[in-house]
C-alpha cells in the first residue's frame, strides 16, 4: 500500500502544478493528513500481520480486560487523537479564512457557466471564453447564478468553488506560476463525458496588462479612420450596426453622410461630428425614426481619440 502510494506519487499526481497561493497551503494540509493516514494504515496492517502470523502462541487466553499499561496506551491514544483533531482544525481554519477573505483591490472578473460554456467578463465589458489572469495579483471571481448548480475547479490552483443553484458567490485567487491550466465543473450530471472544460491562462509578468490593453481597445496612435474601424469592431458596435447597408437592430452606417437622418419626432438632423458624438454618448437623446431606443451609452467608456476615430470612420463610409 505504501509502495503503491509512492509509486503513484512519482507519476501522475506529483506532476500537478502548484500555481496559486492556495496550492502550497492545501498541499501542506494534504501531505500532513496523508502521512498521518499512511502511518496509521501501515500500523494497522502491521498489527494485522503480526496477529495473523503469531496467532498460535501458547499464552493463556486473555480476559478481555486490558492491563494498566495497555489501558494507559489507549487513553493517551485517545488524548493524542483529540489534540490532533484540534490542531488540524486550527490549522485548517487559518487556511480557510485566507480563502474566504477577498483582498482589497483585487481585480474583479465575472464568471458564468451557461449552455454555451464558460464566460469571463472583464471590467471593461470584454467577454472572454478563457480565463486570463495576471501573475502575483489577487483576482476576485464573482460567480453568476445559474439554473444548475456548478463548481469552478482549477486543480492547478487547488481551488474548487461550489455555486448552488440560482445563487451568486464570490471567491478569489492569486496565480503564482505562468502557464495554461485546465478549468472545469465537477457537477455535470447531464453530460458526464463533457466537463465544460476551459483554459485558464496565467500571463507572465507584464503579459496580462498587454492582453488587457489589447482587449480594451485599439492602439490610440493609429490614424483616426483606422483607429475608428478597429474600435467599431472591438467595442461591439457590430452587434447592431453594419457597414454594408444591412439593417440590424440599428441602422447601417453605409453612406452615412449622404443619407437622411430622420428622428421619431419627424425632425431631420444634420449628420455632423456633434450629432455622431451625441449618438454614441447619449443615444436616447435623438432616436432615429423606425428604431427602438436600445443602444447602450458609451459615455465614459471610450477614450477621446477613439470617439474621434469612430466619427472619422463613420463619416468615411461611402
Amino acid at each position, binding site marked *: 500500500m505504501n509502495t*503503491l502510494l509512492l509509486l503513484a*506519487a512519482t507519476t*501522475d*499526481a506529483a506532476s500537478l502544478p502548484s500555481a496559486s497561493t*492556495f496550492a502550497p497551503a492545501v498541499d501542506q*494540509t494534504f501531505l500532513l493528513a496523508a502521512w*498521518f*493516514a499512511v502511518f*496509521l*494504515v501501515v500500523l*494497522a496492517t502491521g*498489527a*494485522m500481520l503480526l*496477529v*495473523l502470523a*503469531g*496467532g*498460535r*502462541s*501458547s*499464552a*493463556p*487466553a*486473555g*480476559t*478481555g480486560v*486490558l492491563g494498566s499499561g*495497555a489501558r494507559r*496506551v*489507549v487513553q493517551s*491514544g*485517545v488524548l493524542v*487523537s483529540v489534540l490532533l*483533531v484540534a490542531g*488540524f482544525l486550527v490549522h*485548517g481554519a487559518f*487556511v480557510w479564512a485566507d*480563502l474566504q477573505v477577498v483582498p482589497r483591490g483585487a481585480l474583479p472578473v465575472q464568471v458564468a457557466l451557461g449552455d454555451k460554456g464558460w464566460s469571463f467578463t472583464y471590467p471593461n465589458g470584454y467577454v472572454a471564453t478563457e480565463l486570463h489572469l495576471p501573475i502575483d495579483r489577487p483576482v476576485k471571481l464573482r460567480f453568476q447564478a445559474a439554473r*444548475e*448548480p456548478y*463548481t469552478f475547479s*482549477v*486543480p492547478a490552483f487547488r*481551488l*474548487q468553488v*461550489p455555486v*448552488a*443553484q*440560482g*445563487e451568486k458567490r464570490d471567491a478569489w485567487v492569486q496565480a503564482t506560476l505562468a502557464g495554461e491550466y*485546465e478549468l*472545469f465543473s*465537477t*457537477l455535470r*450530471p*447531464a453530460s*458526464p*463525458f*463533457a*466537463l465544460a472544460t476551459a483554459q485558464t491562462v496565467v500571463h507572465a509578468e507584464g503579459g496580462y496588462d498587454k492582453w488587457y490593453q489589447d482587449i480594451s481597445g485599439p492602439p490610440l496612435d493609429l490614424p483616426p479612420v483606422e483607429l475608428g474601424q478597429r474600435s467599431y469592431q472591438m467595442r461591439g458596435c457590430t452587434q447592431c450596426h453594419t457597414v454594408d447597408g444591412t439593417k440590424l437592430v440599428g441602422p447601417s452606417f453605409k453612406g452615412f453622410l449622404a443619407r437622411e437622418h430622420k428622428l421619431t419626432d419627424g425632425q431631420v438632423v444634420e449628420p455632423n461630428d456633434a450629432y455622431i458624438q451625441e449618438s454614441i454618448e447619449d443615444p436616447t437623446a435623438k432616436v432615429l425614426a423606425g428604431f427602438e431606443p436600445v443602444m447602450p451609452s458609451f459615455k465614459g467608456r471610450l477614450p477621446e481619440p477613439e470617439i474621434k476615430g469612430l466619427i472619422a470612420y463613420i463619416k468615411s463610409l461611402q
Partner: protein
Amino acid sequence: MSSSTDIGVAKAGSAARASETTETGLGLFTLDSNRLARMYALVMGLALVAGIFLAFGLALQPVSGAPADPEAYRRMYTMHGLALVFLVALPAIPGVLGNVMLPRLVGEEGMAWPRLNLLAFHLFATGALLFLVAFLAAPADTGWSLEVPFAISSTSGIAWSLAAMLSLACSFVCSGANVIATVVQSRRAGDGRAARSWSELPFSAWAFSAAAFVQALAAPILVVALVLLFAQRSGAADAIGASTPGADLRFDTWFWTWGHPAFGAMLLAALAVVSEVFASSAGRKNTATVGSVSALAAIVVLSFAGAGVHVLGRGASAGDDAGASALGLLTGVPFAYLVTTWLFQLAGGALRVTTGLAYGLVFLVMLCAGGMAGVFLVLPPTAAYLQNTCFATAQFHYLAVGAALVALLAGVYHVWPSWARATVREGGGMLACFLLFIGVHIAFVPTLLLGYLGQPRRTGALVAGADDLALWSAVGSALVIVAVVLAGWNLLASVLYSASDEAGKDGA
C-alpha cells in the same frame, strides 16, 4: 449469558445435519431466523454480483475508450450505487448476521417478533424486486444520492427506484425494531432463567442494538426526502422549491440527514460483528465495558449530529461549517478507541487464526484507511478542493466495502460452522481474503489520487494526467470481483463437498 465461543466453534457433522433435513424449500414464509438469514444472503449475493460487475464496467469506461453514451453511463453508476447501498451495504449485516448471531448472543431461540421479522424481509425482497424491474424497464439515472436539481428534470423514469427505496426504508424500521425488542426481551426472566442486568449483555448485542436504533430512527427521514422529490417531479407541489435558489442544497440536507446516520448504522453493525469475531478468536467473552458502550453512544450521537459534513462550504454559515468539521473529525475518536482496545486484546492471548479473523483484521485496516481519508473531506482546506471528486468516492468505498463486504464476510466465515453446518476451508478462504485486501487498495488508492488531480466523480471523461491511475483502478476492481467470486465459491464448496463426502460414505 451465552458464551460467544459457542457460535464460532465448528459443530459440523452428520448428526447435526440430520436433525435439519426437514428444512427444505426456499423458506419464503419461514419464521425461523436462520433460514430467513439464508434468504437475505441469497438476494444480497445476487445484488452484490450485479453491483460489482457494474462497478467494473464503470472503471473500464474511461480507459477502454468505449463509446460515450451519457444516459447509459448515468444509469450504470446509479444502478450500481442503488443496488449496493440499499440491498447490500445497509441491510447486509443486520439481515444476514443479525438474524444468525443476535439470538445466540443473547441466548434466545430466535428474534423476538418473528412475524415482524418476516415482514421486514418481505419489504426488503419487494425493494429488491422493484430495483430489478427498474433495472430492466426504467433505470434511474440520477446517481444513487438523487442529485437535485438533475433528479427533478431527468427524463429517465425513477419512480420504480423511488418505490424500491421506500420499501427498503420500511424494512429498516421493522428489522431495527425487532433487534431492539430481541435484546430487551432477552433480559427478562423466563424458562428457568433469572433476569439479567444490562451489564451482562455482550458488547456485540449493544452494537447491534445501536445500529438498529440509528437505522430505524433515520429511515423516516429518507421517506421524507423521497416524498419531496416525488411530489416535485410529479408536479403535485413545489416541495423542494425547484425554482427558488439553493434547491440542491435544501434537498441534499434532507438526504444526508438520513444518509449520514444510515452509514453510521452500517459501521455500528460491522463493529458488532467484528468485535464478536475477535473475542471468539481470542477465546474470551465479548464483555461490554463502560468505555466501549460510551464509544458506541458517541458514534450514535455523532452519526446524527455530523450530517453537516456533506454540505460543507455550500452556503451554510462559517460557524455551522466549522461545527460540522469538528463533529466529523471527532467521529474518529470513538472508533480509534475501540480499534486500539481490540488490538491490545488480540495481542494479549492465545489466538485461533481463522479466515473470519483475517477478514476482521482487514476490516480494521479499511476502517482506518476510510476514516483517515474522511479527515481530508472535512478539513476545511482540503474539503473544499476534494468535494465531488473521486477522492470522496474512494473514501466512501473504503468504509462501505470494508463494513458491508469485509466485515460481513468476517461474520459469515465466523458463523459458518454452526449456520451452514460445514467446515470452513481456511486455505481458499484466506487466499480470497488476501486478494480482496490487495484488490481494494489497487482499486482505491489510485482513486484517492485521482481525486487529488481534481477528477470529478460520476464522470466518464478523464482530466489531464489521470489515465494511468484510472487503469490501475480498473485492474483493482477486477481483482475485487475475483476475490468475491472466490470467497463465494469457497463457502459454497464447503457445503457441497462435505455433502458429497458424506454421500460417498453412505454409499460405502
